[in-house]
């Protein structure tokens, strides 16, 4: 089946070449970072995680969101999703791969990565996170591959795969819960020390991931003969609307607790992010962009007339995705480190090299995604009109 990813139009190859070039420049700067050390980034003693870990956190959410297709289809028998579940699973594979790469480029001693396995440490959330992430990658590779192969042959998938499909549902929840626990259990980091952190992560994941899927589905329809379906896209739109509402609500809860309690430690990070602290306002414009985009996209999504217009829906999804990317891929991480543990404001901004490495990892992820989608879509195009009971 892999060969289907290697047959394509000039446009397909030009796209892969473009991503390849970005990936190569990422690798080039990574080698520089490998030689010099993480000092090549904007990270410091005070803000010791930044863009890389932010991307990792954000992409775990994108990966987990595949479950928003699996649940309706396999648990609620929503047949309409039969053709596009694979798009979610393949998105998950590429997202988890990016997560692993972002962890890797963030490591000070990447050659020692196997120490996590050689000295398994059950009390470390990071150990569990690496376990659940690799497990999730495995489940999605297996399920995606087995179901797509069956579709290609025009036969129902084997019964045993159901076990892994059902397993993928709690597993998806687990990857994002465990990722939230990286932050939510640290004494002294008030901004992260929140019981709703995991819930907020899941809500933003189930809004951000499906919004990306909508955009991908619209692109797939435009570029190929495979149509993911109008109704399918609308159902995804409804899912995004509910999840985004939950996300904004949960963020509101954080604000309430911080500001009604009036505890300085709980308020300071929010102040730094949204109005500035001690004269430092670096992140303020970004955070307000995120807030405005969140409000606007949510409003557009809850009004049925707007949501049903695919052009406006796409527009809302783009805003929503950018909003969540800023909030979770940047603000959430930096906010936890400012002010630092000695109540000083020390700021962070990614360097050029760090940004290109980040772009490179995204490019690798999209390379994998394009390749996998090419395979899935070719199979779909060939089996068009054939209904297979899963």
């Amino acid at each position: 089946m892999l060969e289907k990813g290697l047959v394509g139009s000039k446009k397909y190859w030009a796209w892969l070449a473009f991503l390849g070039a970005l990936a190569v420049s990422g690798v080039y700067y990574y080698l520089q970072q490998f030689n010099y050390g993480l000092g090549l980034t904007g990270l410091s003693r005070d803000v010791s995680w930044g863009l890389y870990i932010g991307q990792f956190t954000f992409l775990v959410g994108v990966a987990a969101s595949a479950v928003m297709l699996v649940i309706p289809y396999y648990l609620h028998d929503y047949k309409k999703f039969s053709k596009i579940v694979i798009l979610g699973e393949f998105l998950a594979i590429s997202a988890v791969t990016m997560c692993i790469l972002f962890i890797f480029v963030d490591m000070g001693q990447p050659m020692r990565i196997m120490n996590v396995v050689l000295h398994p440490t059950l009390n470390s959330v990071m150990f569990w996170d690496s376990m659940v992430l690799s497990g999730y990658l495995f489940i999605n590779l297996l399920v995606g591959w087995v179901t797509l192969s069956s579709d290609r042959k025009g036969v129902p998938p084997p019964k045993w795969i159901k076990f892994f499909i059902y397993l993928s549902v709690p597993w998806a929840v687990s990857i994002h819960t465990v990722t939230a626990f990286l932050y939510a259990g640290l004494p002294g980091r008030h901004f992260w020390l929140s019981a709703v952190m995991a819930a907020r992560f899941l809500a933003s994941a189930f809004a951000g991931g499906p919004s990306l899927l909508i955009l991908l589905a619209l692109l797939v329809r435009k570029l190929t003969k495979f149509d993911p379906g109008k109704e399918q896209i609308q159902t995804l739109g409804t899912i995004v609307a509910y999840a985004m509402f939950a996300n904004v609500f949960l963020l509101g809860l954080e604000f309430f607790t911080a500001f009604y309690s009036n505890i300085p430690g709980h308020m300071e990070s929010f102040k730094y992010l949204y109005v500035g602290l001690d004269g430092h306002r670096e992140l303020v414009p970004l955070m307000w962009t995120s807030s405005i985009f969140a409000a606007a996209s949510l409003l557009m999504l809850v009004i049925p007339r707007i949501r049903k217009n695919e052009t406006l829906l796409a527009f809302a999804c783009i805003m929503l995705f950018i909003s969540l990317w800023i909030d979770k891929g940047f603000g959430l991480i930096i906010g936890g480190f400012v002010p630092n543990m000695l109540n000083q404001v020390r700021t962070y901004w990614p360097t050029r090299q760090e940004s290109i490495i980040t772009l490179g990892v995204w490019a690798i992820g999209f390379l994998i995604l394009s390749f996998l989608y090419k395979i899935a879509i070719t199979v779909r195009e060939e089996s068009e009109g054939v209904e297979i009971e899963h």
Partner: protein
Amino acid sequence: MSMDRRQFLKIAGISSILGLGATAASATHNIWVKGLSPDEVAKNPEALNAQHWAMVVDMSQFKTDEDFQKTISACHSIHNVPDFKNPDGSVDLKDEIKWIWKAKYENAFPDQDNPYMEEKLKEMPFLVLCNHCENPACVRVCPTQATFKRKNDGIVMMDMHRCIGCRFCMAACPYGARSFNYRDPRPFIKTENKEYPTRTKGVVEKCTFCTERLAVGKLPACVEAAPKGGMFFGDLADKNSEVRKIIETRYTIRRKPELGTGPSVYYLIGGTEHA
């Protein structure tokens, strides 16, 4: 079994490829190379021992900036802590590494100042360092046990050969006591102390309560260099120890005790007499 250097490297290389040894250096865990087990190594009879090492810092004894600098540089020079400076001579906050340093009261004890507080106290410098917590958050989060708490004496240690540089411990430590080698520190070490290892880029480091000195019967370097009566070091589990007596009879404070980490560094703020 005897072998020359070439043979050793060969076997170590092959076994690391096979994943049998994490690194060739951890020879004791390598089934091909038999090393000494901890029981086979004789203990130094001079070594200082305790069940729970703790420190009391009497800030009133630190009167001049020189008192601070002497104490800090005693630590940093013997531990090969690099000195990162900006071109203008100020400290490079980005790459900075520090094991023990000076912090204002309002920074060492955030949220405990008040608007009417004496300016002198608010600005009063404190010596801060790793607290060697009873429940260290850094140890809890480390995915490889590269940072760990010694069962026999409570010291929170670092294995810089095992650290993968994920910096989870830096996010977890509520005292900002940990530093990361953002670049090769060796060119920035003023005079290298050959008795103590230097570090490589990409690992985290911090104060170790001078385990290497305790093992040969010496007190931590800072305690030795501090002004007379400025720093006390001893066994908190021992009722007759000086640190225990001070803590029992004088008003001492610890940094962020509300977090439940159980810091082992105690501070005396005022007064000159001590127990």
